[in-house]
């Protein structure tokens, strides 16, 4: 009987663990709760949900932004930049272009389908970019492994593709028709504002591909209010609320301890 009880407890623990893992993760692109290849759960970053009062000198990563930034938020970011903070906008859809305009930047993300012959993978969108500019985040890094990036216009180029790169407009993976070879800039900067045309560099599957870059980036704050990184579900929200609310955390701890205390208390009485 005792053995059976242990077996039941073990099965319940495993099932509980599986259920917890399932309920607290998502499959949303770039989500911090996505432990899959296209999530950002393994990226060492602290989430921020308000752009107000960002610590001066920090690095803020705005990853795959969605929606629009208010003028007030743009003003916060401008103040953050002026205070010595660094903003890294990683976007390939062009969603950040409005924010860039509000920040007074001339840089823009030009969505496209860049492909290159200088690659080691069958997918023409996975290729090597070359660091051409001086930026702390690329210190000691000569090449960056890119994953279907977009081109960035304006600013001082930081990463360029090889000359054997083209915008594969027809998506057939080979150059033809009106497509021509040419170098593309996929990362540029204006002062402390950096625009990277490849947010995929921060997904779990890509972290190990560019260890030097990720290490040079250092600790970052990540904007969870305007991008898929903040995508969650009700259970995750509830768990997060419990974690961030001490009385709630205490209540949950008490709920967990009470049955055990009751059980042991009964034994002692007996």
């Amino acid at each position: 009987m005792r053995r059976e009880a242990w077996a039941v407890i073990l099965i319940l623990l495993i099932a509980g663990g599986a259920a917890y893992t399932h309920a607290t993760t998502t499959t949303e692109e770039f989500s911090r709760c996505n432990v899959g290849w296209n999530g950002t759960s393994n990226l060492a970053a602290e989430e921020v949900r308000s752009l107000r009062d960002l610590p001066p000198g920090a690095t803020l990563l705005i990853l795959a932004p969605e929606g629009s930034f208010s003028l007030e938020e743009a003003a916060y970011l401008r103040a953050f930049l002026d205070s010595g903070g660094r903003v890294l906008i990683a976007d390939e859809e062009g969603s950040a272009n409005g924010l860039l305009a509000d920040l007074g930047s001339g840089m823009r993300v030009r969505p496209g389908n860049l492909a290159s012959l200088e690659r080691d993978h069958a997918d023409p969108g996975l290729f090597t970019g070359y660091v051409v500019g001086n930026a702390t985040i690329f210190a000691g890094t000569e090449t960056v492994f890119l994953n279907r990036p977009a081109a960035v216009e304006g600013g001082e180029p930081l990463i360029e593709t090889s000359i054997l790169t083209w915008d594969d407009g027809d998506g057939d993976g080979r150059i033809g028709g009106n497509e021509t070879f040419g170098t593309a800039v996929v990362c540029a900067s204006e002062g402390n504002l950096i625009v990277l045309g490849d947010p995929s560099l921060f997904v779990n599957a890509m972290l190990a591909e560019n260890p030097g870059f990720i290490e040079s980036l250092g600790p970052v704050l990540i904007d969870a209010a305007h991008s898929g990184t903040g995508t969650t579900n009700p259970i995750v929200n509830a768990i997060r609320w419990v974690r961030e609310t001490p009385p709630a955390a205490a209540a949950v701890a008490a709920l967990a301890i009470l049955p055990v205390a009751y059980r042991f208390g009964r034994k002692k009485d007996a």
Partner: protein
Amino acid sequence: MNRRATHIILAAAAVLVLALLAGEAVDPVLYTAENISTAAHADPATIEKRSPGDAASVVPRMDGLLGDTGSITLTIKLKDFESAELDLARYRELSGQFDNLVVNLDVTGTDIGEFRRNNALNQEALAALLDDSRRLEDLKRLEIEVRDGEQRMAIAYEGEALRQKMREIFTAYADREAATIRIAEHYDLNATPYQESIRHFAEIVGTVDEWRQSSGGSSTVKSPLTIAVVPDRGRYGDVLTIGGAYTGGAPGTPVEIYVDSRNAATVALGDDRTYRHLYRIGRILAGSHLAYVVAGPVYSEVAAFEVLPDNTTITLAVAGVNRTTVACSGSLTAEGRPVTGAPVVLRVDGETLATAETDQNGTYGRDLVLAPGEHTVRAEFHGAGFPLNPSTSRTETVTIEGEWFSPLPLAAALAAAAGTGWYLRRRWTEEAPAEPLPEEEVPIEPAAEDPPEVESAQDLPPREAATVLFRTLRARLGLPETKTPRDCALLFPAHAGFFERYEAIRYAGETPTEEELRAMEAEARGGDEDAA
């Protein structure tokens, strides 16, 4: 569920699993990742690591080829023909490597492909320049040595032909400058050596002009051997007539016809002292070409003709031959004319290349052995020295099922299953516990008056005799043959001594004595009971 049924189910499950594994043995892809790619990115861990080729070397190779043109023309200008020969050989080798790279990278339709085509023309021009420069030096030397008037005229004819030819080649070489410089600027190549090569080329041709003027001038020399190419332009498959007359030539005199310094044909001078050759445009690059004829020591002037490029159409049909092989076939035509003897590249999955060649009808065929799975196949024609533009067929998709699974794993699986079954059955037979009898149930020994037939133990070795006696007693007690000595001892405690002794003989390897055998025989045959 009894153990026998359990074992049967287990064995059946094992056979099923092994059969499934045997089926997959020829196709080791047991797992296919899903959700590995979105519009934003792809999971690099699941994308096949496969480079399209050494793309990083394309631009350096282009740079090297431009650089070589400068060194070749310089050494020719300096009359260092041996060094020029070596430089030209190296240039040819690098050009060949570059050509392969361009095909492998599938960039023939780009400006890199244009660079490749121009480079092929430059290569021919530089080779001709080297040959002509050597011949020019020979002529200069002969001109000094020869005093005979007729021979001097022959030298003059050849010199004039050479001069015209070199000038035509130079014109075509210089005409490519604009396109080459445009491409060089795009790829940030150093075009200075190439521009120097044009200057060197011009200087070399200039020296020929000077020599001709110093030795009489072209206007004073009129070769008795004339040449004309009619029409003076054509496309792939067209027939041009190269003909002329040889004033003073004897009928039947062989006339050698050269196109781009290569002997195209030899015809005999007719009775009317004319000659004629039908030249079909085949594997020759598009652009300007030169023709001249030689009859003995007499050279004609040089006639130029132009070959115009044509578009091509290549088709591809893919048909399955068997489970692993597909037959690729198709045709290559230029404006409806079949292109013969042309190399066709078959590109599988955008990478793997196989080649075939068109026959006299412009058709080609090639069987491809492919791995199981879905593949794309495309046929390509890259020009390859023809006055034809590259073309690509429609991409065909083919699914390869793979071979039937090998009978070897299946046979092994069946053998393993049979062995397992045999082993389990043996274990079950030997180790099956005796079914407990009710306590009140007493085994009833069979009647002594109906003894079963027994084997004779006489004249047998002691251990075998004991086995015979065990079987005899077991049969007499009515026990099935599947019962072991231990089972028998449990079922018939009255004979436990017999069975335990036999167990020691059977399994511990002990040898019974004569007295023991006699006692066992008496017990086996029921002597004790009879006596009782």
